[in-house]
């Protein structure tokens, strides 16, 4: 049986078991005693940003939205689709494609091994024909149109378009109706061959499970594999932004905004450190206990929908404030004013301590959900760290490091405002 490396968090009384299978597949298991459900993800380090890559000596550029298209098509095989196989185990199955990864998943409460077998099997068996590829265009076309009408989605992508010159993070994950019309079975096979090599993938499982059950299924179902290297190519991205403001009109009653600061991406422990410190800084700057939040809320510039997030992934990062406001430009001004003040005067030490507890507490409770755990492991591992790293960084954060982080993020030269306003 496989040897597991045990990664523990004493603070949280949690552990993650890790092993590298002989096929090159990384396996992470988070045992959760007492849980009724099991949650499994089979994922690849391949998302919407990977549309230009080098593989087996060839430099390849593919249509926008192809990673997502491939995700849809992988569910089909010569003899029916994966959903009908899952139907027999009762598992609830799904998949998602994000900027930097594609994850296939299921959640079960019984017959875990059978469902795991289906998951590992269908993802390893691509089947694309002219006809099945064509059929998907109507379905994904409707998915794209659904997002075209979504102000939350549009305000976000318009912001990314204002922040990024070249980086493909600015491209819609599903592509466009035009770009997906250029997708062929050959292209899908090419992307599959490059990115669905087991050495580029991982398996994460969380729940009340016996790790040996996982290994037994993996041994049986995972094919022999020859590790291959694929390298995504990104054109150099300047630190500067494209434009400071962008606006689009849609059928909305209350205007929406996203206000973002472009940040430098990181990987590994450095990414975990940046994430923890940024979350603390954001809590100090505009958490619900902050003077800025109060000022904006009391003066009616924001409502309870106001949000803040560190948006980061493999090769991109930015800080984004969002919400509904009748005066989005004023909100942006107030944020700039307050961050300038905090850069000059420094954060209040008590505010920092309270923010640190908040971030620690909110991260700790994410371990209450097998779904969160498995998804977090996948997201973190594709950036070369583990969820425990972020929690430890938050619990051990020091004032000076957080202040440095604050000074580093908030630059008036690197911010942009995106607004969705009602059609006049």
């Amino acid at each position, binding site marked *: 049986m496989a040897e597991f490396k045990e990664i523990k968090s004493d603070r949280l009384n949690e552990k993650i078991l890790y092993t590298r299978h002989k096929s090159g597949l990384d396996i992470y298991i988070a045992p959760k005693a007492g849980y009724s459900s099991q949650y499994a993800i089979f994922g690849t380090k391949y998302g919407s940003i990977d549309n230009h890559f080098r593989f087996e000596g060839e430099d390849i550029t593919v249509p926008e939205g192809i990673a997502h298209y491939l995700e849809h098509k992988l569910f089909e095989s010569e003899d029916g689709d994966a959903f009908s196989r*899952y*139907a027999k185990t009762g598992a*609830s199955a799904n998949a998602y494609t994000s900027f930097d990864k594609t994850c296939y998943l299921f959640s079960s409460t019984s017959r875990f091994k059978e469902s795991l077998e289906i998951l590992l099997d269908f993802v390893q068996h691509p089947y694309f024909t002219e006809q099945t590829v064509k059929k998907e265009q109507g379905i994904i076309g409707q998915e794209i149109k659904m997002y075209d009408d979504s102000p939350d989605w549009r305000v976000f992508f318009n912001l990314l378009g204002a922040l990024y010159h070249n980086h493909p993070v600015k491209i819609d994950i599903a592509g466009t109706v035009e770009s997906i019309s250029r997708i062929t079975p050959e292209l899908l096979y090419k992307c599959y061959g490059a990115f669905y090599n087991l050495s580029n993938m991982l398996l994460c499982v969380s729940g009340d499970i016996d790790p040996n059950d996982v290994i037994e299924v993996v041994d049986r179902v995972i094919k022999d594999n020859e590790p291959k290297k694929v390298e995504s190519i990104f054109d150099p991205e300047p630190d500067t932004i494209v434009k400071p403001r962008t606006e689009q009109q849609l059928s909305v009653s209350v205007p929406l905004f996203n206000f973002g600061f472009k940040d430098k991406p990181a990987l590994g422990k450095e990414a975990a450190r940046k994430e923890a410190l940024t979350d603390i800084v954001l809590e100090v700057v505009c958490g619900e206990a902050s003077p800025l939040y109060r000022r904006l809320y009391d003066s009616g510039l924001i409502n309870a929908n106001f949000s803040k997030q560190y948006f980061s992934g493999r090769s991109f990062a930015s800080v984004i404030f969002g919400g509904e406001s009748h005066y989005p430009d004023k909100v942006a001004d107030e944020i700039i004013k307050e961050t300038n003040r905090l850069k000059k005067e420094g954060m209040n030490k008590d505010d920092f301590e309270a923010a640190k507890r908040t971030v620690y*507490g909110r991260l700790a409770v994410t371990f209450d959900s097998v779904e969160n755990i498995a998804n977090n492991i996948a997201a973190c591992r594709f950036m070369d760290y583990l969820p425990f790293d972020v929690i430890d960084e938050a619990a051990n954060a020091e004032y000076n490091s957080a202040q440095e982080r604050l000074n580093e993020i908030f630059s008036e030269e690197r911010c942009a405002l995106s607004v969705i306003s009602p059609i006049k």
Partner: protein
Amino acid sequence: MRMEDKVTDRIKRKNIGKGVNFTVIRDEKFKQNLISVYFIMPLARETASANAMLPLLLKHGSREYPDMTALNRRLNELYGARLDGSTHKRGDYQIMALFCECLGDNYAFGGEKVLESCANLLKSVIFDPAFENGTFREKDVAIEKRNLIDQIDSVLNDKRQYALVKLKETMCKDEAYGIFELGRREDVEKLTPDKLYNAWKTMLSSAAVEIFLVGPGNADYVEKSFADAFSNIDRTNIVSASSDGIKKPEKVNTVVERLPVTQAKLVMGLRGSVAAPDNTDALHLATVILGGSPHSKLFANVREKMSLCYYCLSYLDKQKGIVFIDSGIEESNYEKARGEILRQLDELKAGNFSDDEMKNAKLYLQNALMQVEDSLDSLMGYYLAQFISGDTRAPKEMADAIMKVTRDEVIKAANGVSLDTVYLLAGLKEGE
């Protein structure tokens, strides 16, 4: 509303005041506790807006923490505990919730009694709000009126949600269920601190109250706090069972609305029977066979076979016995999509579904029900819905009952369903 006590190994529910129930779901596997206080009131046009304002106003603070900043600062010290409020509709009831989610005491590195502190905070914002001259503060009321109006207006921003709200309004215009749970803009505008003070008093004295504690924490302190708080309230005219019952549609009503959108939303409301838990289980299962999973009839045909949509699903509102069908399509495919959806329903009614379809739907529902046990929110949501409809079965019991539903019962339940209203939200025509 049936309110009998239920005590299982895992769940203890007891009466701690007139019309006040306290339910504890002790579960050591969680790292956090969740305390929720639900005030259940009849949904009525005259009171909807005032009631919906209360959770927003109450979370502004308490006598001890008289403003949002002070209160949130305290919550941050308690490891980012979250205290919030919301308003929902369940059947013909309007439910105002105030809740607090907090880290379990074992994980507090300062050794604080987080749960007790949070119970005190939650109790104080509900019973001892931040008043000025004996009523809600002018300023808070002005802010939250504006926020509630934004919330009501912004339903338009999410077209899928908007289409469903409009469908319910149209279909149930003579029933409480047709009233939007946040009320209307014009009613919010008329609210004053005094009117809201009266609404608060009425809610405390006459709402049916369900309090939940879910998590690893010890319930004694929380229970005693809320029992004491309610013992100081003169509880009269307490809300009891009232429902507009189930109506039968006389004719199919079709409504088309045009807005500047790219994708059309086709939603439908159908009425069925949920007179007893047995009927509900069969109808629930029928809804899953029709469009509740990625191997359902609607997914397999409307999406996979005909490529008409990205999503097309059906689900049941158990309190009201309404089956909703929800899809996003190209407007030019409207007739085709509507025709196919109704054809699939007819197939179900005619018994044209395989034993596999039936079995798969059962397994799918069973899986969904068993998962309820793994999240604080879903446990609480599940039991609240159960208590309101007078069905005290645990998820496992419900799953067992569903596994026993027969093909004939599904066919019978499906045949009890009839189309009431079709609502199409479509793009503007040229020149509009």
